[in-house]
């Protein structure tokens, strides 16, 4: 099922088939690199790689929906605030009457917006192509304790679970007359009645999950059986190491004056 408890979308692409650890390392390093590399061009290169992978994974349409809802408002806000009001501003790009827009602000905003875009896109790309259970399973096969595995699993479920619950509460509220569609002010006003029930039912859900785990004998001192093996390869192992090493390398390069 698409909604349910994860954002995972069934598929057979290269990304779907990759080892969960490879995807995990890739996601974390790409996000780190997007924030470490110094110039707009480097960030654009990372964004381009992500875009290609999004297309390969066949999740472009879903990602565009996320981008419009999440990234567009952030980008617009950044571009406006920085372009008009960054203290470093001095080169005029254009002026509307007395209001002046500056090149420096535009550049700074573009970098910040692209970094956030990389963060969001990488995270969603990972979530769309990886089953949450597989991440935990892969980590536990590498020696992560079941208790930590559960913590990871829960953390991975927080976003999709909350989205699912928010959708349900909003359906209940609009079916009784609360306007949640249409103009931005209307949707903003529907936000408040959503938040309290959402927080409360999230708490209840967490409690119920803890009880369900205890009932199933979670935490008993028994030896776990592997459910399945993930396909791994030399290429993937090398990729993982390369990506993992690229991050400290980039940090060192920056410290040595990479601009």
């Amino acid at each position, binding site marked *: *099922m*698409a*909604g349910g408890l994860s954002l995972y979308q*069934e598929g057979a692409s290269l990304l779907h088939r990759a080892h969960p650890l490879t995807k995990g390392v890739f996601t974390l390093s790409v996000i780190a690199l997007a924030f470490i590399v110094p110039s707009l061009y480097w960030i654009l290169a990372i964004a381009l790689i992500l875009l290609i992978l999004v297309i390969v994974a066949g999740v472009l349409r879903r990602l565009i929906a996320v981008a419009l809802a999440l990234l567009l408002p952030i980008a617009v806000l950044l571009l406006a605030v920085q372009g008009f009001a960054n203290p470093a501003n001095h080169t005029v790009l254009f002026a509307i009457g007395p209001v002046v827009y500056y090149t420096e602000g535009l550049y700074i905003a573009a970098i910040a917006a692209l970094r956030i875009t990389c963060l969001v896109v990488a995270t969603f790309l990972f979530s769309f192509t990886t089953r949450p259970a597989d991440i935990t399973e892969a980590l536990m096969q590498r020696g992560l304790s079941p208790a930590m595995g559960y913590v990871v699993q829960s953390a991975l479920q927080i976003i999709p679970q909350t989205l699912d619950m928010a959708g*349900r*509460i909003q*359906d*209940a*509220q*609009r*079916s*009784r*007359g*609360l*306007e*949640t*569609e*249409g103009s931005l002010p209307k949707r903003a006003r529907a936000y408040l*009645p959503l938040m309290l*029930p959402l927080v*409360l*039912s999230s708490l*209840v859900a967490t409690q119920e999950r803890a009880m369900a785990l205890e009932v199933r004998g979670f935490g008993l001192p028994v030896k776990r059986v592997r459910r399945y093996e993930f396909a791994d390869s030399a290429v993937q192992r090398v990729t993982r190491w390369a990506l993992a090493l690229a991050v400290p390398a980039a940090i060192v390069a920056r410290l040595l004056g990479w601009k």
Partner: protein
Amino acid sequence: MPDISLEKVLFSYPGGVEVYPEPGLTLALESGVTALVGENGAGKTTLTKLLIGLLRPRSGDINVAGLDVSKTTVAAMAKTVGYTFQNPDDQLFERTVKAEVTFGPRVLKRPPADVERGVAAAIKACGLAGKEDVHPHDLGLSERKWVAIASALASEPSVVVLDEPTLGQDYPSRQRLRELVMRLGSEGKIVLVVTHDMDFVGEACPTTVVLSHGAVRYAGPTSNAFGDRALLKEAGIEPPHVTELAQAIGLRQCVNEAEFLATWRR
């Protein structure tokens, strides 16, 4: 013009199969009480959600009480349609029964006097008097169902859609539900009741729609539906016990106890 009409409606869940086979679902309902019956997964809940716009068809037209659903937001539909979810936990989100029931008329900005009247009437009709300050989650399934029904009725809608209100109801509760549904019908409202309880259909619903594998197999008087053995079998329906009893002892077709007794005495 019928009060509810669906015309060649096609719908599928994301990644799922078609719920209604080609050329789509076509159905017309008049005011009064109509039962919507059919096997699990027949597409009953989907149909009710299409009526209020919680689900949007891929193609086809849906009209409810003069409103073109495709051009109306769910919230605007709620002015006319009182909707209860099959699972009350999908519907209830407030912290007290009173707050829950009041939510609808309040956000619809009904005048205070109307809110008070609607809420009081709904709470009374649903047997919730004295439970106004209870948290809905502390109630049992049957009572949560009643809170859900009361919440839908409080804004005094002219169309009432109840998805499996009979589930888990004990005898007095069923009686109350029967009275409520029949009263709404006699007030000239459009009432659509999804249910698996054929005794209830025979007692409270003069009209029946039989849905099976997404197709309308029958729409018309309830008595004719219960007379058609092949139809019932296909839709996984067991007719009311009185209907079977009357058939077994060679009496005329009847759908509820009152009819049975009348036929019997004659």
